[in-house]
């Protein structure tokens, strides 16, 4: 059995196990959940380490395939290449961390952990699966858990509105995507019709899709995925929803699930519909500015910590989109790196803000201040996370964003310049203001419970370690990413940046 299967089966199994445990055995339930996610994390790390040794089956490793419904070409097919390798590793770690920080949940643990594990397993499976049907199927598994979790364990007076808004937005986006995927699938003539991504890619490489068809399918995918990734102006659900969600949910959702749309664009939309992609990138890069600048500015105005983090994560998505819009090897590699980095980052920040909320019962920034003396550990980690959020070198988001910017220059210098402003200055402004008003300052407060024990520190430490590891040594990922992305880019067509290389500098 492929490790991939193991990675997402383990949490689901744990969920089923919990279903059998009576609800009042709280400790047992937690332990089962932790064990399941921890094991899956170990498997993921192990897979990551042995990635390069594994056998390659048409571009993918650790492949496993079973035909489920030959009639309509659905098969269970998982595999991993450079693009989703990092995502799965990150996902597994985040899921474990999310389970670990959920010890603060004190009511209806049974349901909570079941839903959390269902969500986590589903999203891991979505990233692992190479079959469009299951790719979509597993992603949708998260919808209901999100709804119920925010509904029951969420906070804030806007809870109900947020719950429905996030659910409706996500399902709208998902259904658009569904239409697009089915349409893509139907472009293949009857005999070799399949939902298998590999098969589709090979087929369309051989017989490119009609430009006319691309023209109406691509927008569906672009905006469908866009809504899922909170592309401007479809972003309002994200800060609201994450603000209301319990930290575990927010971590998995903002950290892992959100990357689904970008992953889909890179994996499916670009290589299968190059012409349309070329046609749409300009629109896309403008919308990216919407994310980067506009949402950054909005973040400056937020008085609620969660809203601030939410908006900043929306802004970061802008860089991911910008990399895609560059349609260049460097840019898209950067996008994948940003996805992984932001996964760790978002999870970390939401975990910490959740902790903070538990400690001081508020997320209103003005009511904070001078907390660093009371919560040295949490404070330090949060400050590091926030500095990482404004693109500080040494954290994984920096190389990612840098790659994106380098990759996009030849497509549009102006947009790149503005993005740099967003990355360095705007991000700096709201993050530093937040640090100043939350942690610094002289406000006196009663002593608080800092994450003192090593055990409580593990999840934060893990996420931070991920950030720093890939920040200091990005080649761990990029060397694998670029080989896989190269295929995508080459399918999409001329890579401005690379071609510039030939023309400008013959002696390079």
């Amino acid at each position, binding site marked *: 059995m492929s490790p991939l299967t193991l990675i997402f089966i383990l949490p689901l199994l744990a969920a089923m196990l919990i279903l059998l445990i009576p609800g009042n055995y709280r400790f047992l339930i937690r332990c089962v959940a932790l064990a399941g996610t921890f094991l899956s994390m170990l498997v993921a790390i192990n897979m990551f380490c042995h990635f390069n040794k594994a056998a390659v089956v048409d571009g993918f490793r650790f492949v496993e395939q079973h035909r489920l419904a030959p009639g309509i070409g659905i098969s269970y097919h998982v595999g991993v290449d450079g693009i989703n390798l990092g995502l799965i590793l990150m996902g597994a770690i985040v899921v474990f961390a999310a389970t670990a920080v959920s010890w603060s949940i004190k009511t209806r643990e049974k349901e909570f952990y079941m839903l959390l594990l269902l969500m986590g397993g589903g999203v891991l499976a979505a990233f692992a699966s190479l079959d469009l049907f299951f790719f979509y199927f597993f992603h949708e*598994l998260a*919808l209901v858990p999100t709804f119920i979790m925010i509904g029951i364990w969420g906070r804030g007076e806007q809870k109900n509105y947020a719950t429905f808004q996030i659910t409706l937005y996500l399902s709208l986006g998902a259904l658009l995507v569904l239409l697009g995927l089915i349409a893509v699938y139907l472009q293949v003539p009857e005999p070799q019709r399949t939902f298998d991504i590999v098969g589709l890619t090979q087929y369309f490489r051989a017989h490119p899709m009609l430009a006319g068809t691309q023209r109406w399918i691509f927008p569906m995918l672009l905006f469908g995925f866009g809504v899922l990734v909170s592309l401007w102006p479809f972003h309002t659900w994200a800060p609201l929803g994450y603000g209301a969600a319990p930290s575990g949910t927010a971590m998995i959702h903002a950290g892992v699930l959100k990357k689904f749309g970008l992953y889909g664009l890179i994996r499916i939309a670009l290589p299968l519909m190059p012409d349309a992609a070329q046609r749409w990138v300009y629109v896309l890069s403008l919308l990216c500015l919407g994310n980067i600048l506009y949402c950054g500015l909005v973040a400056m105005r937020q008085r609620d910590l969660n809203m601030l983090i939410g908006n900043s994560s929306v802004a970061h998505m802008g860089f991911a989109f910008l990399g895609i819009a560059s349609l260049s090897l460097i840019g898209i590699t950067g996008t994948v790196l940003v996805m992984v980095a932001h996964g760790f980052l978002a999870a970390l920040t939401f975990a910490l803000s959740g902790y903070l909320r538990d400690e001081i019962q508020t997320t209103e920034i003005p009511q904070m201040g001078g907390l660093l003396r009371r919560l040295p550990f949490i404070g330090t980690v949060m400050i590091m996370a926030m500095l990482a959020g404004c693109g500080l070198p040494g954290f994984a988001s920096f190389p990612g964003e840098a790659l994106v910017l380098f990759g996009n220059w030849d497509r549009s210098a102006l947009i790149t310049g503005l993005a740099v402003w967003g990355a360095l200055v705007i991000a700096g402004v709201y993050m530093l203001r937040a640090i100043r008003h939350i942690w610094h300052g002289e406000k006196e407060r009663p002593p608080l419970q800092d994450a003192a024990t090593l055990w409580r520190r593990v999840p934060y430490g893990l996420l931070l370690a991920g950030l720093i590891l890939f920040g200091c040594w990005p080649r761990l990922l990029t060397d694998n990413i670029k080989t896989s992305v190269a295929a995508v880019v080459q399918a999409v067509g001329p890579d401005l940046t690379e071609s510039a290389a030939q023309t400008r500098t013959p002696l390079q």
Partner: protein
Amino acid sequence: MNQLSLLTLELAVIGLAMAILLIDLWTPHELKHRLGYIAAAGLLVILAISFCMSGATATTAFHGMYAQDGLSLFFKRLFLISALFVVLLGVEFSGRIAMVVGEFHVVTLLALAGMMFAASANDFVMVFVALETMSVSFYVLVSFQRSRAQSLEAGVKYLILSALSAAVLVFGIALIFGTGNRTGFAALGDEGARLAGDKVFLLGMLMVLLGLAFKISSFPLQMWTPDVYQGAPTPVTAFLAMGSKAAGFALVLRVLFDAAPALAAHLDKLLILAAGATILYGNLCAIPQRNLKRLLGYSSISHAGYLLLGIAALNADGSAAALYYLTGYVFTLGTVFTVICIVSRENEDISSLAGLNQRSPFLAFAMTLSMVSLAGIPPMVGFLGKFLLLRAVIERAAQNSAYLLLALVTIVGVVISIYYYFGVIRAVYWSKEPADLSPIVVSAPLKISLGVCIAAMLYLGIFPQSVLACATAAVKVLKF
């Protein structure tokens, strides 16, 4: 004799009905509610028999009146299953229908027989007769709770509107007979080429379809649904939603693709409009709805719309998808109505579900899953069904972009529907209303049937292959 052997299932059902009618005479009152179990057992046996029969070879009998093929068999199994749920609910419900439990099951079974004949109808006369058998039984069933004025009101409404639609249908049949000079599907199908161009024949077909539209509660004859669903006794509502609708679709399929395949191609615009309008009407009206059964009435309108997608696609995939969807729909509704029947006894407001997950986690779980399935979200069957339907529709989008529009309308509808279905889930888990937290006891048979439903919803949602294969085989008899 061979001919009669084809009728095994129908005869068995009728026999069962008669048996219960007789047994009822000698059963003391306090035991009458047990009759449902007899009926259930009988139906189980018949269901088992039905799986021994094979519709692989389409055979007609009684001078082409009656067709036994994959399609009819598929539908008959659906009817049997839904009747099974209904009789079980009948047991649960027996407290609420005075002292005439026995007759309740008898009439239910006769309605079932009508549906089964409808599934095998191969002649417009049969269509009419079978439909009427069904309808008349439902007149009785809907108004079965004589003590409840609402039930009677629903009965009157149902009777009058149904009779109206029946009259339209009959007039249509008359016109068809007049132009085709036949009433047999096969015969008409042969003359399809000639008739396709005949305006009067078209008129007749339209009137027949309108008559059937009433049964599947599709636009423009959907008005009755919410009222009747709300007024009728819960098991009957369930039967209307599962059986009657399915029967209507069986007939629509036969009439369109068996009697007038040549004409069907010209009806695409009408079908697209009907599907779109039905979806939007059902979903939009459901948004502010608080009464559960009424909500399900609207939702059943919208699902009629989804099913029409498959027919509007005018291709084998579409019809197969519709069959698959119906299968899932039966199990889903089986769950929903069982839960409603158990939980909301006197008040049928959504608030009656408040705190359900404290009162009975199992029921809450079942309700949630069924709502998720109705909303069409993985891993439940509802998703796979909609997936197949959309696939069939988009398949046509290449030729006619109206289908793309239809698909988008469907999406809008689904999103809206998620809003109110999830509202129910919300009521189950964290509604504000103060709820009595007395635990609910569920009788063993209902537990089993719920378990079966949930298993089926999940199985169909994840492993489509087997049933989808049956559906595809079933629609082979139709001509596209």
